[in-house]
């Protein structure tokens, strides 16, 4: 006789679980991350390690404080992924405490204050990014140009950069294309004078530009993102909505005034747009549940990215766009519930048709 078990039907399962989802996301994130780590050298590796480890540590501490099973809950990979996502958005040569602080903000303020996994209203990685960007604008906008590993700092030098507070040498620091274009536009120059070319767009797309640790290669992010969609971990509607609305708005604006508005391809290829569309906006916890809801949410993010980039004070608006739309998710969810079988959208039983 078998043991009596309290388990009820169904007795079979799709074998899909949270940790597998997290591992799949990390796998898809890996090419872009590797690209960043390779191009930005040892300091980036150290920053990445510090951020991820801090996130895991923070998670464990929070779980202990909230009296939950530490081992089981921290093994699901969600904290690792959050730390990873935070690290992706940081300037690659930022000092270690930026990474650690980002991880603490993401895990504690972004997640556990709301009640832990699944309870947070805002995307933890974007909370961290927004807070850091507002509080530490200098450290958060000190970029370095990508370089071949041979030209980069050695291990010891990297230790000095990440942990010793050695300032980034001027020679290799650079501005991101977004901030560069914005400051020049602010200075009154037109786009044709700035001289954006297809070559810049290509460099953007493949990641041969200064930028955040993991966001420079739009191509690899796109590749990883498509893999996620093929694995059915994310629904393709959401990234399509984000990128589509961003491209559409940018396209219209560019057609209206090509001297003032950058062409859509730059919007798609630069900065965090691709990263956000596939890896941030698609975060389960903070996105709406239905396809329609996801489409609305995605369009909101895309539009806000365009608005903030074009008229806002910050050159990059992804974090703010995502956070603003996060706040709308409960509302979107309420109005985009699926139609119940046998009922109208309003919830009344379907009328009996005349036969």
């Amino acid at each position, binding site marked *: 006789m078998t043991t*009596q078990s309290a*388990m009820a039907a*169904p*007795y079979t399962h799709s074998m*899909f679980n949270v940790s597998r989802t997290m591992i799949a996301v990390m796998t898809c994130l890996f090419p872009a991350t590797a690209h960043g780590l390779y191009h930005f050298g040892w300091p980036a590796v150290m920053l990445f390690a510090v951020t991820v480890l801090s996130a895991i540590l923070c998670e464990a501490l929070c779980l202990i404080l909230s009296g939950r099973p530490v081992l089981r809950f921290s093994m699901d990979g969600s904290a690792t992924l959050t730390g990873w996502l935070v690290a992706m958005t940081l300037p690659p040569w930022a000092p270690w405490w930026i990474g650690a602080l980002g991880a603490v903000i993401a895990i504690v303020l972004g997640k556990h204050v709301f009640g832990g996994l*699944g309870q947070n209203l805002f995307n933890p990685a974007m909370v961290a990014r927004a807070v850091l960007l507002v509080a530490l604008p200098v450290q958060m906008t000190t970029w370095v140009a990508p370089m071949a590993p041979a030209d980069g700092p050695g291990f010891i030098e990297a230790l000095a950069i990440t942990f010793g507070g050695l300032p980034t040498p001027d020679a290799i620091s650079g501005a991101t294309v977004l901030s560069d274009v914005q400051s020049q536009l602010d200075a009154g120059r037109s786009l044709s004078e700035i001289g954006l070319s297809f070559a810049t767009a290509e460099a953007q797309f493949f990641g041969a530009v200064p930028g955040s640790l993991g966001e420079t290669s739009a191509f690899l992010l796109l590749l990883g993102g498509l893999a996620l969609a093929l694995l059915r971990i994310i629904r393709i509607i959401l990234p399509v909505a984000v990128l589509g609305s961003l491209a559409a708005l940018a396209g219209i604006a560019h057609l209206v005034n090509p001297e003032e508005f950058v062409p859509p391809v730059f919007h798609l290829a630069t900065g965090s747009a691709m990263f956000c569309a596939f890896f941030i906006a698609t975060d*389960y916890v903070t996105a709406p549940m239905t396809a329609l809801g996801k489409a609305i949410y995605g369009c909101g993010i895309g539009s806000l990215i365009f608005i903030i980039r074009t008229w806002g004070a910050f050159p990059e608006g992804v974090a703010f766009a995502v956070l603003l739309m996060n706040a709308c998710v409960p509302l979107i969810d309420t109005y985009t519930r*699926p139609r119940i079988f*046998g009922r109208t959208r309003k919830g009344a*039983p379907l009328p009996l048709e005349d036969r």
Partner: protein
Amino acid sequence: MSFSLAHLMNPTGLFALNGGIHPQGRKFLTADAAIEAMPLPSLIRLPLRQHIGAQAEPLVKRGDEVLKGQMIARARGSVSAHVHAPTSGRVIAVGYFAAPHPSGLPVPTVTIRPDGKDRWGPRLPRIHIEDASADEIATRAAEAGIVGMGGAGFPAAVKLHLGRKYDLDTLIINGAECEPYLTCDDRLMREHAEEVVDGAAIMAKALGVQRIIFGIESNKPEAIAAISRFRHALGYTISIKVLPTQYPMGSGNHLVKIITGRETPARALSAELGIVVHNTATAHAMHLAARYGEPSLSRVVTVSGRGVKTPRNLRVLVGTPVTEIIDHCGGLTGTEEQLLLGGPMMGFPIRSLRIPAIKSTSGILALTKAELRKSQAMPCIRCGSCVQACPSGLTPFEMNARIQADNLEGAVEIGLMDCIACGCCTFMCPSNIPLVQGFSYAKGRLAEKQSQEHQREETKRLAAARTAREEAIAAAKREAMAKRKAQMAEKKRREAEAKAAEGAAPGAAPEGAVK
């Protein structure tokens, strides 16, 4: 048939169900095992409630000799079913015994010790189907004690009488068999196609419909081929709809939607659309009852799972203990973790191996650890898998959150009562949250609340009626009293008047009286 663009683009209806899941079928374990009749068991236990509705009333007592096919319990009320002895033998007990039911609670059960002779009693009288009336056939289903053999066990006769009330046009035979592991309907259609089709035609006659459609999932090509060999019966031409292999294709209203394109309104019956759904095995039982006068005595059961030594399809007598069925299949391997009655999606655990298989038992499964869902739940990450999987368009995680917060009314608001308990949400949930279990709990709580409310209301009503009655009595008493008082007063007045009259003419009357 309604026309829609989706039909045009998807002739096979690959995405016909909104939601739904594709669990591993694991039907290969028994799909090629021909139905085998199981030898007489040493004991037969017949629960008197093998169906939805009121339990049957026993007609036998301890020590009685019964014959095969003899009615041993009579249906009570309009929704109920007779129970017949599946073999000859002696009644050794009429009492309570653990039921094959999720609760495992005891129900009145008649226990028979077979004598091994399998002697038939008188069969049900012959009816000539070709000239039989609709009512005659439906009544025959009732006499034979046929209940829905797909799992729910709804008395078939009640559903066959629907033609009296509704204007019906279509009978759908449910051969979807979407539950993993189960192959009993598949084998029945392959091996007894002609009989199943005949049974369906007999049912169609009882319902007075013109169309018979078999809905069979695409993973049963042999069954489809077998049924299409016998497309004509009793003047009907049967059509076959090949359904995409998807769970829960066999859910009545979803099946109707996929086959006819018509969606049954919430809280309504598909009969209101003119459509009735019956199971394959029920059609076969109908055939036996109408053509041979055989009551519902046996059924095909799939015994499967990695925990069974030789999985197979058996025709077992109703009332055969599970333990004997498993022994006949070589016993358990010892690695089994969970024994189930029914399929793995909607079945329930077997708490004691001594419980019998009944008319609605489609499968007996012994699942090993690798085949089972893990039981440890993690927090919900709002991934929306459950929303995507729900064939009823619900938001399970949201309903679950409200139920956890004890907000049952809130859960009802977003559709708790439209949940068909198919388990798709729980199957998909990456956090292993027992969603559907929570919904069943909430439905139970609500039913309890409702019955309490009903009770309270009834008490109030009775109390009010009593007060009113007492008041009426008191009022009547008062009235009677007042009337009497008035009469007395009248009498007194008259006496007084008489006296006065007497006083006015003294001497006259008495004198006269004396005279």
